[in-house]
């Protein structure tokens, strides 16, 4: 049996660990709160853009009736032969199963896509170090392209015709599923995410779609609905057409994974002990205030004058919508990551406390045993005299 000194040392070490996990939990909780605020701040823009697009969409068809061409290459629906999957994960660990979950959802998606059509080619792009490392390890890396398609800060030309753009030479693939390194994606540090970062990636993706390099773009990320409710979703963000009604309010969800009841309980516990309110009432009030007005943006029941041709307004708005979607998805993913880290660190703190309790019990027993032994020795020594 270990001696008292060893046990005392171990207890001290576990206590130190507990202090660290506890601090990490509190930091995660604070960052989660900030991430939620950023989401609240970003919400009106996303909603307004979606509503003005939806309203424009109601006024005009995707196909220009006079020239019989699509108003924007982003509306072109092609058979999905090559698919781009963008995965938003975390940059750091210590967040429980956060990164594992998103990577699993991605691999599952790849398997499903390949099961449906064996010749389907999938390009992978990763935002966040965890998914990037995973893809790099598990899939062949595509050769870097010679000429990057996106201008650094330029607005893409949505009116570029598809056949003109298709002149981009096809690259030679090493495998059907390839990891595609992308400069804008690699440049994103989630901790300090700015809209400009998301826009650079969005423009690259839009350029690849407009050039018919990919036939559909999916986005896998952690959707953040509340502190207690996050799920992994895979959404199709391009082409910008959804099946029913043709609305573009919300991208089509291709797959999702909900947390179990048990996981939810753990999240609730962690949030309570970190001093987070589960119902974000303040944020809710702000959101409610802007929600209605945001929905009305660009949808007034009047005939707008257009300073430019309406379809020009429309088609220049679409790439921006993609960037806004990406940005918002990243914000949600960041909030989810902090929530996951908070839960994981809360569990770690609880485990450390349990360990300390059991070690203390053992230590006390060992100490008591030693004392008892000494007394027996003294008593039997006295009896022998």
């Amino acid at each position: 049996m270990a001696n008292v000194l060893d046990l005392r040392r171990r207890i001290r070490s576990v206590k130190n660990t507990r202090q660290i996990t506890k601090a990490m939990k509190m930091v995660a909780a604070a960052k989660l709160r900030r991430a939620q605020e950023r989401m609240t701040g970003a919400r009106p823009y996303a909603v307004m853009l979606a509503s003005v697009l939806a309203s424009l969409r109601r006024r005009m068809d995707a196909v220009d009736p006079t020239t019989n061409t699509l108003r924007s290459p982003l509306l072109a629906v092609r058979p999905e032969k090559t698919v781009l999957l963008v995965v938003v994960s975390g940059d750091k660990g210590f967040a429980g199963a956060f990164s594992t979950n998103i990577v699993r959802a991605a691999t599952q998606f790849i398997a499903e896509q390949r099961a449906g059509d064996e010749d389907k080619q999938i390009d992978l792009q990763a935002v966040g170090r965890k998914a990037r490392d995973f893809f790099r390890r598990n899939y062949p890396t595509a050769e870097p392209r010679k000429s990057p398609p996106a201008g650094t800060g330029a607005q893409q030309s949505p009116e570029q015709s598809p056949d003109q753009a298709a002149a981009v030479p096809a690259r030679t693939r090493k495998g059907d599923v390839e990891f595609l390194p992308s400069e804008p994606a690699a440049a994103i540090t989630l901790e300090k995410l700015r809209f400009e970062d998301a826009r650079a990636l969005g423009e690259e993706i839009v350029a690849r779609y407009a050039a018919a390099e990919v036939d559909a773009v999916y986005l896998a990320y952690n959707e953040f609905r509340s502190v207690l409710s996050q799920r992994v979703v895979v959404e199709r963000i391009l082409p910008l057409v959804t099946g029913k009604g043709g609305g573009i309010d919300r991208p089509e969800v291709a797959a999702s994974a909900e947390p179990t009841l048990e996981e939810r309980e753990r999240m609730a516990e962690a949030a309570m002990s970190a001093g987070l309110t589960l119902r974000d009432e303040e944020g809710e009030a702000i959101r409610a205030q802007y929600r209605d007005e945001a929905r009305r943006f660009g949808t007034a029941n009047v005939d707008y004058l257009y300073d430019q041709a309406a379809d020009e307004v429309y088609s220049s708005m679409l790439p921006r919508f993609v960037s806004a979607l990406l940005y918002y998805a990243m914000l949600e993913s960041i909030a989810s990551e902090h929530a996951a880290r908070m839960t994981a660190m809360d569990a770690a703190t609880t485990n450390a406390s349990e360990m300390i309790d059991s070690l203390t019990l053992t230590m006390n027993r060992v100490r008591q045993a030693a004392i008892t032994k000494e007394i027996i020795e003294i008593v039997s020594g006295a009896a022998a005299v």
Partner: protein
Amino acid sequence: MAELPSRSNQTEFPQNRLKVRLVTPERILLDTDATSVTLPGEAGVLEALPGAAPLLTAIGAGELLLAGGEGGDQRFVIARGFAEVLPDRVTVLAEYAEAPDAVDKPAAEKQLRDGQKQVGEAGDDPAKYRAARSVVLEAEAKLGRAGQ
């Protein structure tokens, strides 16, 4: 189109004020009211007064000017956006919007150099040229008012 509203219309709006909201992807930068708003429309500068006809326009790089706001006139550098003008309300969605003193000048200088380089490289490709020009215009808008 410089002045959209006809003067007679304004009697319907007794306060003669516009609610102005400037929204960026990151936050609501401005939520206030003013007597007039000057927007850098893609096709030219336009001014919205209370009672303006409903208008939807793309916005180029330039300056958003609010007249008669609470704290006097307010200026913002904005780029890449859309504006909805309604008789009593102007809402501007812009991917880039900052107060002139908050503009990151070194970054804008770099953007200007990059843009000029792109213009040089664009050659005969009209799409590339247009993209490069918009970079330059945006950088110039950022620099033009910065620090003044």
